[in-house]
C-alpha cells in the first residue's frame, strides 16, 4: 500500500510537468489556433538556457527561473512576428508544419553542438534533502516542483478565465474582427500570447532540468505525450488540460508500478479510448 502511495505521488509530480506544458500548448491553440509543435523545443531551450546560465555565467537556479523564460519568451515573440503572423488566415495545418519544421531545425542545431547524452544540472542548494513522509522519502526539490507548477497553472487559469485581460484574449479569439472593431489590439495580443506560451514552456524546462537532465532530445520525448494530454483534455480547454495532465501523470505512475514495459504507451492507449468515447476530449467544446 505504501509503495502505491509513493508511486502515486511520483505520478503527480510528473503530471505537474505535463500540466504546465499542456497549459502552454492549450493557451496557444485556444487563442491562436496554432498547433504548436515547437513547444517541446521551447521547453528544451528553457532547460538549456538554465544550464548555460550556470556553466557560462555562474547564474544559479532561482534567477534562471525568470531569465530563461524571459529569453525564450522573447524568442517566441520574434517567431510570432516574423513567421506565424503570416499564417493566421490560412488553414491551421500550416502553423503545425511551420512549428514542426522549426522544432526539427532547432533541435538539430542543439544536437550538433551538444551531442545527445544528458548533461546533469544540479539541484539548487536550498532545495536539497527531503521530507521523510510515512510512505516514502520525498526529495524537497520535487515537492517544490509540484507546488510551483500548481501555483503557476492556477495563476494562468485565473488570469485567462477571471480577469479583464483574459476576457480580451478570449474575445480576440472568438471574433477577431469584431474585437478589433471595438478597439482591441488583436495582433499584439496574439504576439504576447505566443510569447507567454513559450515562456511557460521554458519555465517548465528550467524546473525539469535538475530532474530529467538537460539534453536536446528532452523536448521531443515529452511533447508527444503532452499533445496526447491536450487532445484527451480537449483542445482549447485550459482547466481541462491541467487536470488531464495531472491525471495522466498519475496513470503513468501506476503503470510504471504495475507493468513498467507499458509505461511509455499507456498515455496513447488512454487517448485512443477517450477519443472513441468523447471525440471532443474530456472537457473540450466542439469548435
Amino acid at each position: 500500500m505504501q509503495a502505491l502511495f509513493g508511486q502515486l505521488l511520483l505520478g503527480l509530480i510528473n503530471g505537474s510537468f505535463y500540466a504546465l506544458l499542456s497549459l502552454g500548448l492549450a493557451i496557444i491553440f485556444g487563442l491562436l489556433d496554432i498547433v504548436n509543435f515547437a513547444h517541446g523545443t521551447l521547453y528544451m531551450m528553457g532547460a538549456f538556457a538554465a544550464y548555460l546560465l550556470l556553466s557560462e555565467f555562474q547564474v544559479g537556479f532561482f534567477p534562471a527561473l525568470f531569465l530563461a523564460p524571459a529569453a525564450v519568451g522573447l524568442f517566441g515573440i520574434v517567431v510570432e512576428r516574423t513567421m506565424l503572423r503570416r499564417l493566421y488566415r490560412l488553414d491551421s495545418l500550416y502553423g503545425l508544419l511551420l512549428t514542426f519544421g522549426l522544432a526539427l531545425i532547432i533541435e538539430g542545431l542543439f544536437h550538433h553542438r551538444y551531442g545527445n547524452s544528458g548533461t546533469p544540472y544540479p539541484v539548487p542548494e536550498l532545495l536539497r534533502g527531503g521530507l521523510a513522509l510515512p510512505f516514502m522519502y520525498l526529495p524537497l526539490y520535487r515537492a517544490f516542483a509540484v507546488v510551483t507548477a500548481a501555483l503557476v497553472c492556477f495563476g494562468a487559469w485565473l488570469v485567462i478565465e477571471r480577469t479583464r485581460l483574459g476576457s480580451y484574449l478570449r474575445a480576440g479569439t472568438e471574433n477577431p474582427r469584431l474585437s478589433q472593431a471595438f478597439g482591441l489590439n488583436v495582433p499584439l495580443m496574439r504576439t504576447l500570447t505566443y510569447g507567454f506560451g513559450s515562456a511557460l514552456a521554458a519555465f517548465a524546462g528550467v524546473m525539469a532540468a535538475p530532474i530529467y537532465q538537460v539534453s536536446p532530445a528532452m523536448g521531443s520525448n515529452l511533447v508527444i505525450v503532452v499533445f496526447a494530454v491536450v487532445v484527451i483534455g480537449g483542445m482549447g480547454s485550459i482547466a481541462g488540460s491541467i487536470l488531464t495532465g495531472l491525471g495522466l501523470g498519475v496513470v503513468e505512475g501506476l503503470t510504471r508500478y504495475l507493468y513498467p514495459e507499458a509505461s511509455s504507451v499507456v498515455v496513447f492507449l488512454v487517448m485512443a479510448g477517450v477519443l472513441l468515447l468523447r471525440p471532443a476530449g474530456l472537457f473540450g467544446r466542439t469548435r
Partner: protein
Amino acid sequence: MHRRPMAILALPLLLAEPALAAEGISDGVVRIGVLTDMTGYYSDLAGPGSVLAARMAIDDFGGKVAGKPVELLSADHQLKADVASNVARKWFDEDKVDAVVDLVSSSTALAVMPVAAEKKRVLLLSGPGTTAITGAQCNAYTVHYTYDNWALANGTGREVVKDGGKSWFFITADYAFGKSLEEDTAAVVRAAGGQVLGSVRYPSPGTTDFSSYVLQAQASGAQIVGLANAGADTVNSIKAAHEYGLTKKQRLAGLLIFISDVHSLGLDVARGLYATTAFYWDRDEASRAFARRFQSHPDNAKKTMPTMVQAGVYSAVTHYLKAIAAAHTDDADAVMAKMREMPVDDFFAKNGRIGPDGLHRHDMYLVQVKSPEESKYPWDYYKILRTIPAAEAFPSVEAQKCPLAVRR
C-alpha cells in the same frame, strides 16, 4: 544505362580479388574502423576516447604493418542496431575495411556479428557485455576482448554477497545487455546462498528519471539493489537512489561501473561501490604511462583518463596488428588464428588468451571506490582489492557452449 560498359570492365577485377586476398594485404592498406556511440549516453566510456585509443595504437605500432600503411575510420552508431549493421556493411563492401572495433553496446554487437561473419572480416568487441557473444551466438570472426557480464557478475556479485548482501533487487536496463547481466548476477547470488526478491526492467535508452524504480527497490526491502545498467543510466540511477534516501537503509551494487561514471558522480556519492574492471589507470607504471599519454593527447578535449573500454581498444588494435605482422596477411581466417595463438601480455591484459569461442580471458581486478578523504590526487578513485586470475574471472569454454568450440 551508360554505366553498363564500366561494370563489365570491373568484373575481372572483382573475380581477381579473392585470389589477391589470400596472401599479402588486401588493397595494400589495412583499414580499421571504430564503430561506437559518439554522442549518446555511452559516449563518455567509449566514443571519441575509443577512436583516440585506436589512433594511439596505430601510431605506436608505427603507422604501418607488413610494409603497408594502416588507416583509421570512425562512425557513430547512436546505439541503434540497424544503424550499426548498415555502417558495418558499407564499410566492408565499399570502404574495404578489414576490422571493426569497439561497438560498445550488446545490441549493436549482436547485429554486426553476422555481417562480419558473412563478409569474413574481423570484429574486435570492447564494451558489449552479453555472454551470448561467445556463447550461443559465437562466430569465428569475433573477439570479445575487454570484459563480459559473467566476469562482472562473478566479480562484483560474489564479493557483495560475501560482504553480507544476501537479498537482492535489480533495476535492469530492458535490453540484451541488462537482461543478461541480471540473469548472470542472479545465478551467482543464488549459488552463493542469497535470494533475489524481484526486479524491475525499465526502457533503455530513454529513461532519465529513475524515481519510480528506486521507489520500487525501496519497497522490496532487499539489502542490495543491483544496478544492471551502464553509463549515464548508472549515474542517473545512483543519483536518484541518493535523492530518495535509498542508501540510508539499503546498499547499491553497480554491476558495471566505469571510471567515467565515478568521475561524473563524484566520490562522496560513489564511495564504497564495488566494481570489477579490466583496467585501472593507476594500477602499475605501464598503465600510468599509457593513461598519461591518453590524457594529455591533443585529441582528448576533456582530458579524461581512459576507461577499460578505451584501454581495451588500444590493446585489441595492437594485438590485431601484431597478428597481421606474424601472419603476413590481413586475411581474416589467418589473422584470427594468429590472434588466438599468440598470448596477450601488455599493460591492459595479463595472462590474456583468446579462446576458440572468441572470448579473451585475462586477469580482472576487483576494486572499490575510495572515499573523498582517501583520494589524494585527481582521478585517484579506486583501491584495488584483489586480482582475479583469468581462469577464475571468465567462464570456461565448456560453460559458454559456443557451437564452434565444441570439440568432438
